[in-house]
């Protein structure tokens, strides 16, 4: 079955591959329902970020990132306070609108106060056979963090095994890890093309591909990405890299995607980011050797810093300055979701570090559920004009 699908995909050209990925980003639910029809398997939903999809995949389930874009806030407002972030509110709304009723399970990582409580509400309003919190350690430098996380991953693994009625074999987990490592590598290569030649792969298409990756069966996805990369790599050679305003985006989630159009149309390019639905999703591979659970632990403890994740050895503010310098970025956009308190509390430190380093930065606040795009465009364009001086008129 899998073989046939991969062969089928093999006949596609790069544009068709890109179209399929765009379509998957637009209609994520279709990916899951189609997979269910073909395999009769179970779909385990998860919220961003850092959920070990490799474990879900090794259990034979399809991991599915719940997409908050289609949510209507009025559905969530009856159950969740309006000062919770719009990502959480919209994700719950998507469930309440019965747009993800194909889910057999849900895993919510505890990354903030809202996600700590969300599963409890979800259990009441849309109960599913498997519902778990993934309790991440926050202070990852503590000697106990690794042992704690190992226990937590064992607990999640056991729950998946119970649900499946069968153990997850070590070999299967290692295979899933290899598949996901390969996938991340392909996504990073495409990210590189976007940096080098946004004319060939726009920032918006790149983030759509990442979005598609979060819902698509990995085997099918890797095939499409390989084809796309092979062709785009050739196309990229036809373009000399125009002088562009190189930007780093730091924050929670990229929303709305139009932000990337505003950057590209003003001659900007995203050279790095630390977003949950951006580079954070593809940055950290898992060691192929040894105990696979321990490898998953080590991956988690060594990830890039985030607002919900404290690393004394690698402070986020310093990390971001270093990242901006390494990538020769002219400026940093802090992209915050309204009411995302971990990100907001981090901001002061991050902004101070940028000021000290002489790197211009701007804070832009967005939300799921529609924000005025005209104002967003003015902010982004004005920031790029500020970086670009004389080239401002377009």
């Amino acid at each position, binding site marked *: 079955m899998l073989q046939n699908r991969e062969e089928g995909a093999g006949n596609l050209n790069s544009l068709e591959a890109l179209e399929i990925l765009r379509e998957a980003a637009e209609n994520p639910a279709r990916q899951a329902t189609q997979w269910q029809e073909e395999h009769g398997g179970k779909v385990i939903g998860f919220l961003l970020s850092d959920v070990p999809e490799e474990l879900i995949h090794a259990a034979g389930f399809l991991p599915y990132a719940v997409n908050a874009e289609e949510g209507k806030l009025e559905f969530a407002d009856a159950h969740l306070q309006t000062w919770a972030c719009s990502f959480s509110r919209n994700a719950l709304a998507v469930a309440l609108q019965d747009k993800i009723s194909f889910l057999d399970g849900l895993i919510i990582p505890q990354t903030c106060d809202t996600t700590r409580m969300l599963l409890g509400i979800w259990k009441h309003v849309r109960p599913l056979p498997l519902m778990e919190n993934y309790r991440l350690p926050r202070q990852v430098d503590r000697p106990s963090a690794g042992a704690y996380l190992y226990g937590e991953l064992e607990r999640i693994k056991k729950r998946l095994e119970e649900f499946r009625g069968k153990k997850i074999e070590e070999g299967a987990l290692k295979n899933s890890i290899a598949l996901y490592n390969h996938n991340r590598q392909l996504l990073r290569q495409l990210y590189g093309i976007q940096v080098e030649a946004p004319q060939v792969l726009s920032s918006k298409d790149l983030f759509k591909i990442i979005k598609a990756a979060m819902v698509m069966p990995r085997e099918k996805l890797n095939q499409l990405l390989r084809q796309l990369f092979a062709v785009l790599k050739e196309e990229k050679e036809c373009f000399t890299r125009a002088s562009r305003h190189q930007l780093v985006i730091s924050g929670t989630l990229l929303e709305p995607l139009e932000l990337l159009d505003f950057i590209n149309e003003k001659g900007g390019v995203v050279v790095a980011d630390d977003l949950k639905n951006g580079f954070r999703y593809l940055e950290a591979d898992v060691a192929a050797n040894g105990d696979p659970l321990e490898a998953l632990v080590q991956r988690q403890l060594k990830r890039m810093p985030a607002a919900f994740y404290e690393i004394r050895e690698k402070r986020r503010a310093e990390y971001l300055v270093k990242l901006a310098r390494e990538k020769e970025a002219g400026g940093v956009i802090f992209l915050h979701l309204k009411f995302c308190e971990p990100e907001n509390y981090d901001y002061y430190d991050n902004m101070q570090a940028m000021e000290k380093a002489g790197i*211009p930065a*701007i804070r832009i*606040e967005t939300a799921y559920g529609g*924000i*005025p795009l*005209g*104002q967003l465009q*003015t*902010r982004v*364009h*004005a*920031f790029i*004009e*500020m970086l670009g*001086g*004389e080239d*401002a*008129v*377009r």
Partner: protein
Amino acid sequence: MITAGIDAGNKTTKTVILKNGEIIARALKPSGFDQEKAAREAFNEALRLANLDVADLAYTVVTGAGKHVISFAEGHLTEVSAAARGVNKLFPEARTVIDVGEEEGFALKIDKEGKVVDFAINEKCAAGTGSFLESMSRALETTVEEIGQLSLRGKKTVPMNAQCVVFAESEVISLIHAPVAKEDIAKSIHVAMASRISALVRRIGLEKEVVIIGGVAHNPGFVRALEEDLGVEILIPAYPDYISALGAALAAGEKAGV
């Protein structure tokens, strides 16, 4: 060299014609529903006043909230950069620019060449802008032209908590029924509005000289409240609503000169 700058604002559309860097004509029209039409009218009016033809212009740049719908302009520039350039031309010593228009208020930090060093824009809220004053004028049964003068006669301020035009209006109505003197309510409204704008200025850091532009700069009550809030004297250009159009015309000159 002759260039034109258009500022397609939310309420009014302005055009400035520059000849060798000096203003030779300016015109203003209400933006209305059809911003392209308003821009065309302001543009033609300015050309007529300057006794010029479109063919005489080396380049035209448009700025303002409606800039993307103005099809006949050759270049676009954001309101932020346009304001900075316009102010720098008139006040080279200005380091802080405050622009308060109909729907948008922002604060800029600029250098001696008129380049933007930092900026802050109000967050999708009308509480610090011209439309807020219009709404409050209606509640006080006065006009937007009168409300500033009225506030200068106010003796005291009452705290206003509302951060939103809709809530502020009901708060004002409560004050009317309290009853609080009309001029005191007017003063309180201006103080509340100034605090929204001063928060933007504090975010980027206050540096002298401070210049205010945009339609709300015509309101002496607001300027006074903002001066008291920030503790500085604020400079006002002769035609504060035309400064962004001037900035766009200057940018057009740079573009044509390249």
